[in-house]
Each structure stands twice: as C-alpha cells, then as structure tokens.
C-alpha cells in the first residue's frame, strides 16, 4: 500500500532521514520505534507531505506522493494524527471534526462519519460543543484521532499517540489502536513506548539517527536482546 525507497529528507541544511526504505501492506499495523531525534516524526511528515523528500521514492497505491501537493495527499486516503495532537484549540470539538472532513469527497458523508466517530468515542458526543483546547489530554487525543478518521482514510498515521498521557490513558490509546485495526484500517504508528507498541503492531522498524537499523516482526523484536537492552530496560 505504502512504499518508501531510499528516502532522504531534512530541514534546511539539516538532514534527518538517510535512505529510509519501508513498506506498509494493506490491513497491516506497522510501528516505527527509536530514540528521540531519530527522525520518526520527520518520517511521518514526509509521508503526509508536510516535508518533501530530497531524494528517493514515496509511493502510495501507485501514486507518487513526492509529486502530489500536500493538501491532495489526504484525498488519496492518508490521514495523519500529528505529534502532540495539534487540535484547533479555540474551535469546538465538532468544528475540529468538520475540519477533518474538509476534503470535497468527505463533505457529503459528514453526518454519517460523525456518527462513526461518536460511536467510537462516546465522550466526543458529550463534548461536541466544547472548545477543543479546554479538554483533557486524553480527550484531545481522541478528538485528534476522530478528526483524522473523518476523511475516511485507508492509511492512518499516528505520531506518538501516547505521549504526555497518564498510564491508564496510554492503555486506552493502545486498545483503541487495536479497535481501529479491527475495522480494517491500515496503521503506521510512531512510538517511544516501545514495549506497548510492539504488542499491537504486526511489524516494526527501528529508526536510529535517521537510518533504518533493524526491521522485523513485532514478536521477534520484542524478543531480540539488543532491543530489550536498549529500549525496554530489562
């Protein structure tokens, strides 16, 4: 579904990604793990078009993403839940969701899709007239994921969904990822929370200083000594 080959990208003169190759198949959940500053967020931004790659190929279902304007990538079925949620704080929950369904194809289905999101997050229905910025971190995360689902994506990009949340909520977020997967959505997820993310994804890539260091099935990585030592502290 999504294929990156030898992708390079960065900010100005600073290069953050070096020859990153990665694949996500339909219906899969794929994790990208790695230390701070490894380039995980950059990777997500390259896929959703916020940053353009300087080299390499980036293909989503046969369409060259590098040649697609950023705002058209959503129309191809890619929805990105950015790091630290980035809701529109002075807009209501429902207006935030409306922005998620901004693309022309999603507009006629707004009501239906809103129901889908409210079914998934009953909490959001209660809060639909509340300003997004006034909600708790966990609720904001729900709203951010809901906003991404409004465009009926095929591929969901989740950037650090558990960051800054209380442990109980972290559990909930990963459970949610499981439910989203079950609905048939393909998920690419970036996480610091290595142990938990490896329990919900099928495969994972370990990114280190902008390069793919290791790749493999989640279970294998969980069992691998180097990962255990470096990231799990056991």
């Amino acid at each position: 579904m999504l294929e990156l080959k030898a992708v390079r990208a960065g900010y100005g003169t600073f290069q953050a990604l070096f020859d990153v190759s990665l694949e996500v198949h339909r219906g899969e959940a794929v994790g990208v793990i790695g230390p701070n500053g490894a380039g995980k967020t950059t990777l997500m931004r390259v896929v959703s078009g916020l940053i353009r790659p300087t080299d390499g190929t980036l293909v989503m279902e046969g369409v060259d993403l590098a040649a697609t304007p950023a705002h058209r990538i959503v129309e191809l079925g890619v929805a990105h839940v950015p790091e630290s949620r980035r809701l529109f704080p002075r807009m209501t929950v429902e207006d935030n969701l409306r922005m998620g369904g901004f693309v022309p194809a999603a507009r006629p289905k707004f009501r239906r899709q809103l129901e889908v999101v409210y079914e998934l997050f009953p909490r959001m229905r209660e809060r639909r007239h509340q300003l997004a910025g006034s909600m708790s971190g966990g609720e904001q995360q729900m709203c951010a994921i809901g906003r991404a689902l409004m465009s009926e994506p095929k591929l969901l990009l989740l950037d650090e969904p558990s960051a800054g949340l209380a442990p109980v909520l972290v559990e909930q977020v990963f459970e949610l990822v499981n439910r989203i997967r079950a609905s048939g959505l393909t998920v690419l997820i970036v996480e610091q929370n290595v142990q938990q993310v490896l329990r919900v994804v099928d495969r994972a890539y370990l990114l280190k200083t902008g390069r793919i260091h290791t790749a493999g099935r989640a279970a294998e990585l969980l069992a691998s000594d180097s990962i255990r030592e470096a990231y799990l502290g056991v």
Partner: protein
Amino acid sequence: MGIFDIFLLEAVINGLLLGGVLALLSLGLNLVFGVIDVVWICYAELIMLGMYGMYFLYTVYHAPIVVAGAVCIVCVGILGLALHALVIAPLLGAAPINQLLATGGVLFFLQSAATVLFGIEFKNLGLRLPVLKVAGMFVSYSRLLAFGAALIAMVLVYLLLTRTYTGAAIRAIAQDRQIMPLMGVDTRRIYLITSGLGGALAGLAACLLVLQYDVHPFVGLTFGPITFLICVLGSLGNFGGGFVAAFVFAEIISVGGLYLDLEWGYVFAFAFFIVMMFVRPEGLMARRS
C-alpha cells in the same frame, strides 16, 4: 433636556454610527492578520482608492450608485488579491517585519499614485442625503446607512466563518497554519480568498465613507492609525475584541470632537489607548506575535 445634553446625545449617537464603520474596517484588517499573519499597513489606502472609484463611477460617469458600489467592492477585492499575490506571497517565508514594511512600500506607492493620477484636490460625491431630525437632534441618513450596511456585512462575514467549510478553514488556519495540509486545505487558496475578502470589506468601507467624507490621496492617514489602534487594543486577529474596541474609540472620537476639533478626538483616542495599555494589558495581548 438642556441644549448641551442634546448635543452630547447627538455626539453619542453619531459615535455609535461611526463605530459600525470602524468595526467594519478593523474586521477586514483582523481577518487578513488572523489568517495570513501579515498586517496590511496600506489597508486604509485601499479604502482611499475605493473612494476614488466611487467618485469617478458615480460623479464623473454617472453610474447608478448601487452599481458603482458593487463595482467598487469587487475592484478593491481584486486589489486585495493582487496585493497578496504580488507582495505578500513572495514574502511569506521572510521575517514578519519585512512583510509589514513591504506593505508600507505599497502605502507610499498607492498614495503617490493617487496624487499623480487624481491630484491633491479634495473631491466629493456631490450627493447629499437628507438629515433625520429626531427630538431636536440631527442624524444624517448617510451615517445611518453606513451603520446598517456595516452591520449587515459583519453578520454576513460571521455566517461565512461559522457556516461554511471555507469559513471553518479560515478560523482554523489562524490557530494552527502548519497542519492545514493534513486537513486537505490548500493554504494558498485560503490566503487568496481571505485577501480578496479583506479587500472587498475595504471596498465596502470606501463606499460608506465616501458618503460622509471628501476623498483625497492622504485620506487614508485619517482612518489608518485609528484602525490599527482598534486592532491592537482588541488584540489583532480577534474579531470580537476589535468590534468592542471600535465602538469605544468611535465614542471617544465623536464625543471628544464635540468639544474640540475632530483631530483632538483622535488624540484623545490615542491617549485612551496608552492608558488602556497600563490598565488592561491582558485585554490587548490575547496572544503574542
């Protein structure tokens, strides 16, 4: 009621009516600032051109006033688009202050272009609307009309912002511009729409102001500073704040102008502004630039 009180009441009413137009002015500027994060220093000069447009269409070419107004609104809207496309768009990545100064250059350009093209004589529509007499007070129809039209325009803008996808995008972009592509929003398009809308509001303001004031190349200097003060006091990009501030300033100008010249009204407004900065700085700075 003594004669003094009637004058005062008349000034208060006129201030209220002026407030409507000032609120319209600050709305256009706020919209552009909120969405594009750029201050059009030359905003009042767009209005000046619109006033000339009205003068030529109505007085010189005898177009019906409604047609002249519509043409004027559209043309100044296009000017707003052009300003964005030619001056602001190439500078979007530059230091904010450079964007501000570039529009300062446009101010110079528009003022002198008007001087060169139209001369420095004061011109007016030659249209005198009747004056309404109520309980010994005089209120001109042109002011009532301006007030009404400004209010209707503001309601329309409000509906646009709250009821349409484009409006939602305009509000959203002011809160987080970087993630707009993730929503599928083409920011360049929203910028252009906003610039056109900001220009059209300036065009409408021109139509309303030309009913009451003569036009000359430097007329923008009369409205410009006061509009900026309103926007800063109401906190730039905050529509509600600008609305309230517009009425406060209009009252100061109108009531202050009752006792002394109109210029003193502006001076009082500025003094009030400085005092307000000491008293209620948080009202000024809802967010930092």
